[in-house]
């Protein structure tokens, strides 16, 4: 790697330095736009004691769900974990610590982590279990709670297209948490469907500049659909 070329050629290299008890910020919503091969590599590495922030925890046997099988996740920060029986079992038994975080607050906590904002106020969660123990302050007659930023040792994310400098474009709703997740990790690792030469992406259409990306790898994706719903013609 010289200059701004972020491309690595193996998943082992992509996650080099990932160690037990680290924190990972992960992109994806359900199984849509998840870094599936990076997750598989974490399973292969057998890294334990992980704290993972991601909107969902995958399903049984897919996505982050596969990291539950060998109990690699110590703590999960997520907004919705209802799709995963193994997750529920580990949570109920207390093996797995869970910090339920409202979806918008989770997105904003990731953005804040990447943007040098250590904390912000939001009305979301005021007066609910989410607000317990958090500072409440009134602005313009309304109560807000203080939420702190999220930072990761690593970010793992999935984009659609990238150039070799790590400039990224996402596709449809596979964008979701990916851009913010990338900004919030000390080492941001992104897998993409296609890597193009530098200069092939229109600078005005880049969704996330390569400055946030440390390592880039091209992968092939299963793209499992959770709820296949169709209409008839």
């Amino acid at each position: 790697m010289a200059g701004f070329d972020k491309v690595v050629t193996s998943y082992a290299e992509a996650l080099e330095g990932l160690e037990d008890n680290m924190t990972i910020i992960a992109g994806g919503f359900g199984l849509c736009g998840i870094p599936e091969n990076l997750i598989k590599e974490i399973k292969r590495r057998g890294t334990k004691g992980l704290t993972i922030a991601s909107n969902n925890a995958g399903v049984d046997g897919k996505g982050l769900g596969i990291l539950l099988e060998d109990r690699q996740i110590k703590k999960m920060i997520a907004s919705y974990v209802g799709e995963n029986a193994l997750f529920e079992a580990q949570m109920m038994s207390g093996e797995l610590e869970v910090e339920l975080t409202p979806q918008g607050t989770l997105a904003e906590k990731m953005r804040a982590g990447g943007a040098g904002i250590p904390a912000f106020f939001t009305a979301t969660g005021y007066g609910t279990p989410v607000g317990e123990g958090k500072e409440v302050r009134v602005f313009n007659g309304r109560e807000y709670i203080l939420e702190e930023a999220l930072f990761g040792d690593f970010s793992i994310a999935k984009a659609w297209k990238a150039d070799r400098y790590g400039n990224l474009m996402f596709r449809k709703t596979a964008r979701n948490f990916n851009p913010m997740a990338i900004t919030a990790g000390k080492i941001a690792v992104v897998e993409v469907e296609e890597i193009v030469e530098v200069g092939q992406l229109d600078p005005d259409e880049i969704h996330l500049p390569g400055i946030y990306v440390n390592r880039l790898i091209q992968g092939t994706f299963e793209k499992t659909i959770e709820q296949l719903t169709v209409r008839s013609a």
Partner: protein
Amino acid sequence: MALSREQLAQRVAQEFHDGFYVNLGIGIPTLAANYIPEDMQVMLQSENGLLGMGPFPLEEEVDADLINAGKQTVTMVTGASLFSSAESFAMIRGGHVDLTVLGAFEVDCQGNIASYMIPGKLIKGMGGAMDLVAGADNIIVTMTHASKSGASKLLAECTLPLTGKGCIKRVLTDLALMDIVEGKFVLRERARGVSVEEIAKLTAGELVIPDNVPEMRF
């Protein structure tokens, strides 16, 4: 007679206005999209990063990269836009969505809503619901008025962990449409053939019954 799911959806759709940006929760709220009047434009926001959600895809249109907040495959309407989750919730939290419709386990006459957790039983998470109720001025909660055993879900005070505090002003149940005004439920409409007395019996929170409570019209 209690409203069917379809009738609930139809009644929700009566709250739409031309040019409204609307977020519809999973279940009955989503069904309301089927009842948007033909002469009216409504744009659906899906909090996973889509404004301008269309119907389910034809089989050949299915795209794993295009789903709604319920993880269902969907399509986009002409004029749709796509964005990140941070942008999506900036939109929601910042009050830019005109109407939010979502379900609940309980609502109370202080405007509190409980919809995401039954301790020891159901801990799936709040998803975007807490942001939606905190961000919207205009929310309709759709729910059944009482449990199958006849226990009211319209309470003086919610018993389950809250999703939002003091943020609900309108509730549509299978029996009635109610506003929440100054700590009281105010009965606005009733389902066809459902008496005011029946509604009063199944409403645990303080209820105001105006002189005239019309039946819902579809």
